[in-house]
């Protein structure tokens, strides 16, 4: 009953790589989470997460490249903010996985109803 492999094959047909790869790294997710509260300079992220300045800068660069964060200059510092619109592909994938599972099981359900209706009319 390889129900699941099949579902996965269907769900995987819709993969998009950039945002997925960007959030694959745990520290980058931590940075995004830190930015939920609002716009922050690099220094605030560094102290929130206890990471080195160079690590944070490196990850912010990756996140900026895929558009998950945007930055702007203010005086001498640079402020970073979350750009949640770029999470849409991930959200879409999750929805697709759920849809594939439900599609599979709804078909079984329909078929079961069909069989029982046939049984009742005999």
């Amino acid at each position, binding site marked *: 009953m*390889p129900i699941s492999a099949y579902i996965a*094959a269907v769900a995987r047909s819709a993969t998009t790589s950039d945002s997925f790869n960007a959030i694959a790294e745990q520290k980058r*997710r931590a940075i995004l989470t830190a930015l939920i509260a609002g716009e922050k300079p690099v220094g605030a992220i560094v102290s929130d997460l206890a990471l080195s300045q160079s690590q944070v800068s490196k990850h912010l660069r990756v996140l900026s490249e895929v558009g998950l964060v945007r930055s702007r200059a203010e005086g001498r510092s640079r402020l970073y903010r979350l750009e949640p619109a770029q999470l849409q592909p*991930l959200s879409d994938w999750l929805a697709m996985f759920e849809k594939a599972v*439900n599609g599979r*099981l709804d078909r*079984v359900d329909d078929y079961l109803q069909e069989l029982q209706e046939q049984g009742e009319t005999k």
Partner: protein
Amino acid sequence: MTTTRRGTAVIEFPSDLEILITREFEAPIQLVFDVFTKPEHVRKHFPPFGEEMAECSIDLRVGGDYHYVMVTDDGTAMSFRGTFMEIEPPTRIVDTWIFDGWPGTEAVETVELHESDGVTKMTWRLTFRDQAGRDHMTKFDGIEASFDNVEDYLRTLLEPEARHG
């Protein structure tokens, strides 16, 4: 009798190696068991777009094999096979599965059925042998994060956004 349970599957990720799906069906347990284990039934509900199954063999005994082959519109054959490890009709089946598209990936699938007041609840647990196996299911090319992390994470991020409109 009409179906009112469309879209009600509950999907959980209890550990890095497991996927757990639960779903209820308005049908007696023996019928649900048959629909998942007899080729004449599987042929009717397995293909998503009414395709023909090129092969659908099920040797329903411990140590017996099953093999499903479905051909998609573009001519690609998708082949799934495995071996039954435990069979306790109509409540429990444990089998392995291998999808030929993912060489080296093997999973163990445990399906349990329980009937109460004419409603059969299916608990379908999929356990991958190793992380690489589950990654096939829940990750994207090259990605390192496990799906449960991504899922939790998405909810965290999307919920504040939804509140702000």
